[in-house]
């Protein structure tokens, strides 16, 4: 009797495991949009590294997917929380079996697997985000987050009273480092005395630790907290201390109504529509692009009431200058932390140099280890 009962309990436990496991991972796109029957047989797949509801990186891509559905009425499907490992191949092949003919893979670590599957399926179009590999049927794309980060630096630089700005950063990778540098240069463009203090969390996703890092920064005198990490933890810290903050990925005003000023945000929808439209029209060609504010892929979220006076004008002016090319973020003279000139006056860093940046500009306090 007891044995039977225990067997049943174990069964229930493992069944519920399977049920929860599946329903959180195999959600499909809104194929129920039957009334909007697509006139083509384009099916678009998206592979995310995190949960689509993380209010962060994967969420931003999913917003792009929803925009694509709305604009073009194509069928989409997605798979979330896919680890950066051999599973990617399986996911891609599953999607191809389900009829996907355009697939976006949205994490750096998906690159090699995307390349492999792309070689095996020359008829399917692949677009990989944040990498560098390209084939005839595989594009790579990324956004110049440095541009809105520079703008958010202007806001922070105008707001700070202690002239110390805290920056909670995920990992010491070029993507994060160049973001910090762009932010610091934005700060210095309006407030040459301010320093940007950096704390590494060594995680993309740990709300409590990210908040701890922000608290450490606030204790050291920072009164504006910016972040390159995916949770609103740092925002909460600023809110609790009555200080100010700059978010990332999404509008975080709900998390910190009295602290949040603005955030650099992703806006993939326009690019996704353009690419899928090209596939529909038969004009698609593989490309390697690094898209900026002028393409609409990155932007600064609207400033809130917490932003300093005059920030809107300064941001608007800098934004216009970045878009028309008169303002170059990484233009010389640029010194590194030791005071050595890294970019002489009159020269501008090339995209490749910015892409692989591994040093901090003067005015950033923190170590790259």
């Amino acid at each position, binding site marked *: 009797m*007891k*044995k039977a*009962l*225990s067997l049943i*309990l*174990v069964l229930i*436990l*493992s069944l*519920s*495991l399977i049920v*929860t*496991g599946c*329903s*959180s991972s195999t959600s499909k796109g809104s194929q129920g949009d039957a009334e909007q029957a697509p006139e083509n047989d384009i099916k678009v797949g998206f592979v995310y590294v995190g*949960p689509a*509801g*993380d*209010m962060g990186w994967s*969420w931003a891509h999913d917003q792009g997917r929803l925009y694509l559905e709305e604009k073009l009425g194509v069928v989409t499907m997605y798979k979330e929380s896919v680890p950066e490992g051999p599973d990617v191949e399986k996911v891609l092949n599953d999607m191809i079996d389900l009829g996907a003919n355009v697939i976006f893979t949205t994490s750096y670590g998906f690159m090699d697997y995307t390349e492999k599957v792309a070689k095996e399926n020359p008829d399917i179009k692949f677009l990989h985000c944040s990498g560098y590999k390209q084939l005839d049927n595989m594009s790579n794309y990324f956004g110049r987050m440095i541009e809105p980060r520079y703008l958010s630096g202007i806001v922070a630089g105008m707001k700070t009273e202690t002239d110390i700005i805290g920056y909670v950063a995920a990992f010491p990778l070029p993507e994060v480092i160049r973001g910090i540098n762009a932010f610091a240069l934005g700060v210095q463009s309006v407030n040459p005395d301010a320093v940007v*203090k*950096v*704390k*590494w969390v*060594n*995680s993309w*996703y*740990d*709300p*409590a*630790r990210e*908040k*701890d*890092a922000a*608290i*450490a*920064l606030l*204790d*050291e005198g920072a009164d504006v907290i910016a972040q390159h990490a995916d*949770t*609103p*933890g740092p925002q*909460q810290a600023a809110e609790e201390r009555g200080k100010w903050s700059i978010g990332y990925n*999404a509008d975080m005003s*709900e*998390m910190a109504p009295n602290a949040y000023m603005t955030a650099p945000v992703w806006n993939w929808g326009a690019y996704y529509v353009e690419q899928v439209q090209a596939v529909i029209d038969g004009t698609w060609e593989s490309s390697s692009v690094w898209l900026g504010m002028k393409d609409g892929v990155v932007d600064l979220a609207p400033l809130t009431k917490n932003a300093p006076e005059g920030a809107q004008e300064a941001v608007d002016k800098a934004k216009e200058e970045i878009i028309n090319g008169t303002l170059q973020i990484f233009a010389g003279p640029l010194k590194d932390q030791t005071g050595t000139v890294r970019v002489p006056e009159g020269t501008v860093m090339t995209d490749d140099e910015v892409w692989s940046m591994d040093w901090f500009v003067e005015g950033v*306090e*923190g*170590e790259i*280890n």
Partner: protein
Amino acid sequence: MGLTISFLAAAIVAGTPLLFATLGEIITERAGNLNLGVEGMMLMGAVMGFQVGMDTGNPFLSVLAAMMAGALGAGIFAILTVSFRTNQVVTGLALTTFGTGFSGFWGKQLVGQSIPQNLKTFFKPFPIPGLSDIPFIGPVFFNHDWLVYLGYITAIFLGIYLYRTRRGLNLRAVGENPAAADAASVNINLYKYLHILLGGALCGLGGAYLSLVYVPSWQENITAGRGWIAVALVIFAAWNPYKALLGSYLFGGLDIIGFRIQGTGFPISQYFIDMLPYAVTILVLVVVSLKKSRAYAPPKALGIPYFREER
């Protein structure tokens, strides 16, 4: 000085979720059951506490819901390991997997939501009049939210319970030698069930501290491995609630010290600091086994299912 005080105060806050979980695991293990599902129970408590907080806006109900969710997880564990005598390690691990999946699934619609303002106000730091004016000690220990105080009280209460009461003695007997306790007409299964459930409730509370007070918002896998640190802390604290108090704040401090060191030019890697809680635990294990100290020995019947018939 100011920085030291703010660091120590932050260490106490960072240690509080660890403290609840550690205390929960201590009384579970004192009953002779090794429940490795701490992480899962913490997550279940975190998500349920947050859900009820969102729905009702009532801090007491949300804390209660978190404890019940933790106890529910522990209940599954108790039925399987006590009544059906399944392998405790495997069952505990399954509970962690279950809790992680359950909380991720349940919390899907909670991501990105913010708890009601009155809850935030309720969980604001509340300086204890008088005590918080003591220089140094006041701002470090007595200027926190009330769950931190509840942590102190729970640890002291459990210490008194374990070492100063008849029931506490019975509980320790159940963990050390259930056959002898059984002979002394202690209801073994009742003791095991009650303390496993209570332990789960405390784990759930630890998780809810993260989602309701510390972060406060729901994020998938919000505990980020703290449940495992709690399991290590139980060994570090030698199954003693008072030492758990000390150990939790020490490990909480280790958790956040990296950020304070960064930028001072002190040449130490963050990864090294992240390793310390585990390294210290291993060190304690080695020292204890060398000394063969009885005070540091685990409950003798820990992990062994009790069959009355095999007595």
